[in-house]
């Protein structure tokens, strides 16, 4: 076995635990996970069956941790994993899996398949069998600071412009602030209205917040490529800044994987609990709504449906806030059949949107049909979501099918219809 394959085996041996063993032993090949995965349902190709995506991991488990598997290996009856196989599996593990987690919700024997894929990616990452797009995004995040290569001066510029547009100065590196606000590069570059919205809402609510100049990036390509080592490096920047600035809360933006990275994986990556709380921006907004701070001056009239980003709702646990908030601001919100934790993925999560090969883009366009059908069945012209990656991926999809659907961000929508406060009056700063 080559040195690289040795490392793969070593890595995978280290990540296999009782849950993974239990899951592999329970799988009865019922194929129901395929029926929950949009890559299978929209293509009909059985190679996209979720449990099949982790077949090499299963073989490592069998050969290393079961007596019969070990005996088979001893007498030469088992097939060790090889480079060709890992090459073949790259598409299955990255291009056609967005870590959306629907499979884990339907498996009748209870297998958490998305958990297995996340762990399997550790082995793929160490062998270099990863898509170019995600590799370069990770490289940029580790070496420069973010997946798009944004550096602080550019970010500072955007913040300054947002401050000017809203009349609210956005504090930077302010020690003792309540909230350390994180941003995703996608928001900074494509949807800077989100930053303005935040500023307005925070000002109205009288919340003290700050951005850190050395830890502004929320997204964590390390999670997507599947390397805990690199993910740790990236998330540690945030932890260090939060502790240095002595904030009470770290605010995760409208970005799915960012929330997963900081809220759920973060403490496990650094090996200790956080000394601060992680809050998703929608959780904060819902809290404000419940306190009566988020009064709307008017409502949004057009009928709309909600797209629940996988990493925030199903995988993140922010279940109630989104619908409560949309009902606050929209008159004509139409709940769809597969809503909340049952929603279908945009097709671009898990790093998939960073893969720009022809095949990957064609696949994303193909699986977008499920969202297309949701919009058409509801008969609406507007869809609201709260993840910048979902937005960019779905905009591409809408473009591809020449649909006129308007795609809006939830926080922006709230801010647009928010009752204004006089910025010159003494606001309710603590």
């Amino acid at each position, binding site marked *: 076995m080559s040195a690289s394959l040795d*490392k793969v*085996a070593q*890595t995978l*041996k*280290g990540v296999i635990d009782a849950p993974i063993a239990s899951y592999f032993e329970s799988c009865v090949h019922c194929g129901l996970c395929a029926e929950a995965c949009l890559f299978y349902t929209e293509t009909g190709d059985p190679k996209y069956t979720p449990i099949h995506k982790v077949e090499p991991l299963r073989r490592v488990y069998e050969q290393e941790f079961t007596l019969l598997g070990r005996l088979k290996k001893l007498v030469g009856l088992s097939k060790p994993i090889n480079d060709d196989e890992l090459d073949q599996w790259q598409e299955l593990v990255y291009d056609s899996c967005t870590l959306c987690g629907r499979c884990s919700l339907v498996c009748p024997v209870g297998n958490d398949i998305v958990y297995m894929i996340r762990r399997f990616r550790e082995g793929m*990452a160490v062998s270099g069998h990863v898509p170019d797009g995600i*590799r370069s995004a990770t490289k940029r995040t580790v070496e420069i600071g973010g997946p798009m290569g944004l550096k602080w001066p550019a970010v500072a510029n955007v913040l300054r412009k947002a401050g000017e547009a809203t009349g609210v100065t956005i504090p930077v590196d302010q020690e003792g602030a309540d909230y350390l606000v994180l941003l995703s590069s996608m928001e900074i570059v494509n949807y800077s209205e989100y930053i303005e919205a935040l500023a307005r809402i925070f000002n109205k609510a009288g919340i003290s917040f700050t951005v850190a100049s050395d830890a502004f990036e929320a997204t964590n390509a390390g999670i997507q490529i599947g390397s805990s080592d*690199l993910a740790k490096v990236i998330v540690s920047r945030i932890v260090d800044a939060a502790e240095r600035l002595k904030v009470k809360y770290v605010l995760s933006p409208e970005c799915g994987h960012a929330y997963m990275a900081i809220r759920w994986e973060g403490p496990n990556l650094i090996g200790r609990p956080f000394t601060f709380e992680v809050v998703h921006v929608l959780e904060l907004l819902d809290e404000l709504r419940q306190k009566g701070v988020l009064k709307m001056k008017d409502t949004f009239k057009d009928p709309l449906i909600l797209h629940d980003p996988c990493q925030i709702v199903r995988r993140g646990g922010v279940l109630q806030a989104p619908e409560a908030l949309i009902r606050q601001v929209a008159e004509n919100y139409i709940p769809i059949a597969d809503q909340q934790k049952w929603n279908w993925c945009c097709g671009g999560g898990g790093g998939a949107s960073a893969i720009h090969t022809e095949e990957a883009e064609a696949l994303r366009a193909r699986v977008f049909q499920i969202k297309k059908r949701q919009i058409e069945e509801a008969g609406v012209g507007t869809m609201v979501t709260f993840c910048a990656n979902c937005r960019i991926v779905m905009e591409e999809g809408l473009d591809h099918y020449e649909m006129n659907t308007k795609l809006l961000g939830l926080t922006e929508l709230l801010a647009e219809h928010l009752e204004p406060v006089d910025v010159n009056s003494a606001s309710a700063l603590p």
Partner: protein
Amino acid sequence: MQGPLIDTLVRQGVSRRTFLKYCATLASMMALPPAAGLAMAEAMAAARRPSVIWLPFQECTGCTESITRSHSPTLEGMIFDMISLDYQETLMAAAGHQAEEALHAAMKANHGKYLLIVDGSIPLGQDGAYSCIGGRSNLEILKEAAQGAAAIIAVGTCAAYGGIPKARPNPTGAVSVSDIVKDKPIVNIPGCPPVPVVMTGVLAHYLTFGSLPDLDDKGRPRAFFGETIHDRCYRRPFYDQGKFAKTFDDKGARRGWCLFELGCKGPVTHNACATAKWNGGTSWPVESGHGCLGCSEPDFWDAGDFYKALSVPAHPPTSVVAAPVIGATAGAAAGFANRAKKNAARKARQPITVADLEK
């Protein structure tokens, strides 16, 4: 040798009408058409009684007892008057040298034509010394007698299949008649003891048709052994409804419920007890409240506890205690090995850098 049977019957005060009724009953029991009853009557009435030699080997005499304790002594006695029973140690008057002489005279005079009835198993151990008559082993006697027999009727489970002497560990090396004799037609009439009317039915068939009745793969007459006790049992509806006696004197037992749970081997036993019954149709084991022992099946003594139902282990599984313990030990060892391997892998692993992402 005496004259035609009908003369004997008349002498004993049995009317022709009664005799005809008897033959009709016998025919219907063997599921033969009504005309056969008449044929039987005519054949038996005119029968020149064939020679029948009865050899008892390693037996308990129960078969003889059963056959003589049959329906109505007068009628069964008549059946024995139908044949010339030239040798039967329990019933004959002679003994010693006279008995031996009678045996050899009958064998010589009827060579090739006599019916040989055998009860008891044949021991092979110690050169057959375990059972001898007049200084000769059963094995030797059987081989000699079989030579001149027209057919052999192995009466009782011992003669048919080895019976109780063959039960584990079979100290005498007991075997059945068909284990020894390979070149003569053999009818097995198993049972411990067999049902009397089965015996007489086979004889009547032979006398009427000159041939042995239809036999199954175990040499048993299909007419009497074609169905299981279970399929003819009058308590079957209770089995189907799930009503079982759980002890010999509980409510279920007193109501005549199915005895499956008390070990009845009816489902795997072929015999005529459930229909022909015993003691002139008085009763049979199940009707008297005890499960069938399966006594007409080969090796029924070694088929597990008589009081354990067919669906439970014949002997309590001894592995239930040891197996989980061994499993736990092996499993714990495997667990340790697994954890050690996993921890070693984690420890030896170097954190990766961006450079490692290149292939």
